[in-house]
């Protein structure tokens, strides 16, 4: 090796060589080896292309074509073999070269001396594994189980191989898990009660719709590729209706926009249903053949609901409700897309059930181009091989212990017998994204060890003891599907991992190896393996048949992306619902089991406390997914700070002008940020978009209380958070 030869020559030539003087050998450094003789075949100018998959928590889950020159990514674009994304990426996807090559990336495993101190020292992977393993074994010894170890991992990377982190945890014993989802729980439960499970139709079928209602969804910002199909449909004469409390980017494109009072969507749906019943516009045959409990529901509506009441409740004029009901009921097929934001209320689940009922009574469910589309998981039939190894023999406890991801801080603090002493965080940034971040920090304070695996220095990393550098999609192998479209995307390794980054799978293998070295048999996770072999093990016969592929390798060769068989792309086409009765259940005993009313009834919305009369909504932002992307320089060059959207009328009352700094406050906390005056928000509401901004030490969640939604336990184990029932006051700062 050349480095050594240099060093040797130094010794020979340099009489007072510093190297010799201080006894510096190669071993004393963690630095990369340095320069070595060049491989004979090496030249610059080699161009290659690879298929990648965007693994972020996004409807669109794009198939990517990556150009690599001299081992460096030079261009990233959409894979044209995919008819949903059509070779195009969203604005965030286009920034991937920066995500990979940003000098801000976390490069090496590091340990912080004093949590939050900013005093970091570099350690080797070996040292990191040793510190973590020793802690795990110590905890196991002290508490008799691994339950004091808590995993908080979620949606930062949905590559199937990333479930290795959960697998690694299962392989050391029973642990505590952050369970649930901040995303869709109430709505998913609602659809679960009504139809057995949430199941959406292919978004490419928007083209077949005669009428589209986007109900609290903003695909222009959150699913640009779906927006393409919606615009195409519009151009062909489909009417687009958007129902939303805010004039979103999508609402700006609607043929008709209806501004609704937030959290009253259920009342609107029920009002429409009453009109449809009154005018005999419902599909009698459909409900007779495919549902149970219709007569009870019919009676409930006729007894309790009037259109006048709905108008009063929702702020939508009666005439508009009636026209909307008539148009929707007579269009064939009519398509509803329910956004996740709509159900982030204390009555979110009930509202989704009411909207489902609207689609059911008009016979729109099970029809191509129709349906009540929310989320789906039909293509997620992987083996989840990485999670299959089980607890080692002699590990204490009987099962994993669950804490609610959505009230993580408080539940970690409350956990007892045994308490939680160690946290492993992957694919998440809880301090930025969870409600009540100050409580989450308190929970961190209680830990003996916090390990975070991440790409960037987030608020959570700042508050960790050990940080492990992870790979971008381009540096590892994987496979991805979507919870919205029907494609499966291959992820190839396009470049070598930068610095010392490792994938979650490699980390799991490395930790297992160390654990087994220190205490043989203490971890059942395999200690080695080729990622390509791992990914092949994810595919079973059913999923191969569904996508008409033989293997991961086959999918790669076929263009990196494949669409599921047509037969599953129309939700409930066979009308075999997965409810206990096998029918659509207006009357759900399952709902009763979970403590809810059996029928899709109206549930009151959360009322604003007197001191905090202004609703502060925090919808998704177009330059970010949760805490990802927005901090990249290309996007910072477009918008470099968060802002608060305020209606000019409210601003006038509060003496606030454009760009004034505004203080938002409630009992949970406060923050200050610039105002943007806009009529896009109603006068009783302010909007701060969700995201993690570079150089900004707060997020929209500072004032969000861990207020639970009405549903979530049935499908997701835990209720979600009513993110949009966040009430504040504002003043000029």
């Amino acid at each position: 090796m050349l480095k050594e030869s240099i060093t040797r020559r130094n010794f020979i030539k340099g009489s007072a060589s510093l190297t010799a003087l201080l006894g510096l050998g190669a071993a004393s450094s963690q630095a990369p080896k340095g320069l070595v003789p060049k491989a004979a075949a090496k030249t610059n100018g080699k161009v290659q292309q690879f298929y990648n998959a965007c693994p972020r928590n996004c409807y669109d889950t794009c198939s990517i074509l990556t150009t690599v020159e001299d081992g460096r990514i030079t261009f990233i674009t959409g894979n044209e073999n995919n008819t949903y994304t059509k070779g195009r990426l969203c604005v965030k996807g286009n920034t991937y070269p920066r995500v990979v090559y940003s000098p801000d990336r976390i490069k090496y495993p590091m340990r912080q001396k004093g949590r939050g101190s900013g005093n970091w020292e570099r350690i080797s992977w070996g040292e990191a594994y040793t510190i973590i393993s020793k802690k795990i074994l110590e905890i196991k010894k002290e508490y008799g189980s691994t339950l004091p170890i808590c995993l908080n991992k979620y949606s930062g990377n949905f590559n199937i191989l990333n479930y290795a982190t959960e697998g690694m945890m299962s392989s050391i014993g029973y642990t505590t898990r952050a369970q649930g989802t901040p995303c869709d729980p109430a709505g998913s439960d609602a659809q679960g009660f009504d139809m057995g499970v949430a199941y959406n139709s292919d978004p490419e079928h928007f083209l077949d719709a005669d009428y589209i209602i986007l109900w609290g969804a903003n695909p222009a910002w959150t699913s640009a590729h779906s927006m393409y199909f919606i615009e195409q449909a519009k151009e062909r004469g489909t009417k687009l209706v958007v129902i939303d409390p805010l004039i979103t980017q999508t609402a700006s494109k609607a043929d008709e926009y209806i501004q609704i009072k937030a959290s009253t969507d259920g009342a609107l749906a029920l009002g429409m249903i009453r009109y449809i019943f009154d005018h005999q516009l419902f599909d009698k045959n459909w409900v007779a053949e495919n549902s149970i409990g219709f007569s009870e529901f019919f009676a409930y509506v006729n007894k309790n609901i009037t259109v006048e009441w709905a108008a009063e409740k929702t702020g939508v004029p009666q005439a508009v409700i009636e026209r909307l009901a008539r148009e929707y009921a007579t269009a064939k097929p009519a398509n509803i897309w329910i956004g996740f934001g709509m159900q982030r209320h204390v009555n979110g689940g009930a509202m989704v059930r009411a909207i489902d009922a609207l689609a059911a009574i008009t016979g729109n469910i099970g029809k191509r181009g129709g349906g009540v589309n929310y989320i789906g998981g039909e293509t997620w039939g992987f083996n989840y091989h990485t999670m299959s190894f089980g607890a080692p023999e002699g590990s204490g406890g009987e099962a994993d212990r669950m804490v609610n991801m959505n009230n993580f801080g408080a539940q970690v603090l409350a956990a007892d017998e045994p308490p939680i002493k160690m946290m492993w965080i992957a694919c998440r940034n809880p301090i930025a994204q969870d409600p009540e971040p100050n409580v989450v920090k308190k929970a961190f304070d209680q830990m003996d060890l916090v390990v975070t695996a991440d790409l960037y220095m987030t608020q959570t990393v700042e508050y960790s003891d050990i940080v492990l550098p992870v790979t971008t999609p381009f540096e590892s192998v994987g496979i991805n599907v979507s919870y919205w479209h029907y494609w499966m995307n291959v992820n190839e390794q396009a470049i070598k991992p930068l610095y010392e980054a490792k994938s979650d799978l490699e980390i799991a293998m490395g930790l297992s190896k160390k654990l087994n070295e220190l205490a043989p048999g203490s971890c059942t996770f395999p200690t080695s393996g080729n990622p390509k072999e791992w990914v092949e093990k994810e595919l079973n016969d059913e999923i191969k048949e569904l996508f008409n592929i033989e293997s991961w390798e086959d999918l790669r060769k076929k263009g990196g992306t494949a669409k599921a068989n047509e037969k599953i792309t129309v939700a409930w086409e066979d009308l075999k619902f997965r409810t206990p009765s096998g029918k659509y259940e207006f009357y759900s005993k399952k709902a009763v089991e979970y403590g809810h009313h059996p029928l899709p009834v109206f549930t009151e919305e959360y009322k604003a406390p007197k001191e905090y009369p202004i609703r502060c909504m925090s919808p998704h932002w177009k330059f970010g997914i949760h805490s990802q992307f927005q901090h990249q320089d290309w996007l910072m060059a477009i918008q470099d700070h968060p802002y608060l959207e305020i209606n000019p009328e409210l601003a006038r009352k509060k003496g606030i002008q454009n760009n004034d700094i505004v203080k938002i406050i409630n009992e949970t906390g406060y923050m200050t940020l610039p105002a943007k005056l806009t009529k896009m928000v109603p006068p009783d509401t302010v909007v701060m978009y969700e995201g993690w901004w570079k150089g900004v030490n707060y997020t929209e969640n500072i004032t969000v209380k861990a207020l639970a939604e009405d549903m979530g336990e049935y499908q997701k184990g835990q209720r979600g958070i009513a993110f949009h029932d966040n009430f504040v006051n504002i003043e000029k700062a």
Partner: protein
Amino acid sequence: MAKKLGFLVNIERCIGCHACEISCKSFYQLEPEMRRRRVTELPEDLVGTPVRAFVSTACNHCDEPACKNACPVGAYTKREDGIVVHNQELCIGCQMCGKACPYKVPVYNPVKRKMDKCSMCYERLDVGQLPICVEKCPLEAIQIVDYNEVQPENGVSIVPTFADPSITHPTTQFILPKPGKQTRRSS
């Protein structure tokens, strides 16, 4: 007859996502501050009812390019097909083109110390490919039109915030959004 290529930007379709801008930047590996295409927010009351509207603009490949007349080194040429090309080899970075352009299209690249602007990806067009922004717009809101052949229905040469087209006769045309029906809550 020679071509008259120009962009046709459909504001009705544009969702202001900036993918055109960023894909162009990525393809040409431009610095963060540099944008050959730029997405700009339009006034809220553009169509009467409040909406979020954006317009995406790049070089307008004018019939009478002010940049071309301002440039002291003759770095600008207007091709037969109407594309205004800036030859960076010749540029001495005097920035006069940027001053003269009513649309502030040529921008200074502080690294190369030369001006930089959209070339309608003529190298791609010449081999039968579309410009990056046209190909990568998720909504297909940008097109290339030969205005000598086609006069698009609804195409207009001016949008609010856009300079008077009589100065340089830009070839870009826009399709303005149609107002939708809105039911807004009264306060």
